[in-house]
């Protein structure tokens, strides 16, 4: 079943803020085998000009799992069957590094839904802001909904 295109433009603010923890940054760095001291040692981070340890560039992927239930993905009205979904593209724009102690607010928006052959592509844009509302990062995720596009011959008959 095709996705509900009326969802394009809808915004989903996360239900809570997300506090970035030093130990969570360390845990994430451990998981990717990265010993960089700027992820682990506040003194090393300060020497590099940061107020505290910073997070790896893709760390904010954790927001998607922390706030999964505030996402359009799980809104039944969208009609997304998660068993048909694969992650197609991901992009991070970091307006500044994510720092331990940051209290982040996030808003996800359905930016686009379009056909790509038999699949549909849905692009979600998540804006992440700091405690003062300043932009921290913009995450763009493209999900592939396999085989849910309306077949072309059917579409032309309906049109």
């Amino acid at each position, binding site marked *: 079943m095709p996705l509900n295109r009326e969802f394009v433009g809808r915004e989903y603010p996360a239900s809570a803020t997300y506090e970035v923890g030093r130990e969570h940054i360390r845990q994430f760095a451990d998981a990717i085998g990265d010993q960089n001291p700027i992820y682990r040692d506040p003194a090393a981070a300060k020497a590099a000009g940061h107020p505290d340890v910073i997070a790896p560039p893709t760390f904010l992927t954790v927001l*998607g799992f922390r706030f999964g239930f505030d996402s359009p993905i799980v809104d039944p009205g969208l009609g997304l069957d998660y068993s048909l979904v694969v992650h197609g*593209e991901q*992009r991070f724009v970091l307006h500044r590094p994510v720092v331990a102690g940051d209290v982040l607010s996030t808003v996800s928006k359905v930016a686009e839904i379009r056909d790509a052959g038999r699949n549909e592509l849905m692009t979600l844009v998540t804006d992440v802001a700091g405690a003062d509302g300043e932009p921290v990062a913009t995450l763009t995720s493209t999900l592939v909904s396999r085989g849910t596009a309306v077949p072309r011959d059917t579409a032309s008959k309906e049109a």
Partner: protein
Amino acid sequence: MPAYDEVEVGTELPEQVFPVQRHNLILYCGASGDSNLIHWNERIAKAVGLPDVIAHGMFTMAEAGRILTDWAGDPGAVLEYGVRFSRPVVVPDDDKGAQLTVRGKVEEKLDGNRVLVGLTASVEGGSQVLTGARAVVRLP
């Protein structure tokens, strides 16, 4: 960290080979919050038609990104990073796992001491697991 003035279009980042074992995926499940069964349970992975357990795409992206942060020294120098996931990294349950080979090259010098870096990531046999991988890195 390399200086902007010392870097040219075509400058290569040091290539790295990252081992990807089941253990890494279990750690990443915990760290990221993505504990989807296909990333650690061989029975379920095969039941949904995969050859074996596969790495999280985001794990592969994070691991490949290490050639950027290792090159820059300060991970805060990575301003943008984007990839397309072209095929999964299959991770067998043996002592070796998969090997992720990551290369990078400066494709363009931008203003503000920034450079555009193109990345490739492949597994044994040469299959590319990321395509269109690009990052913007600020150099001193």
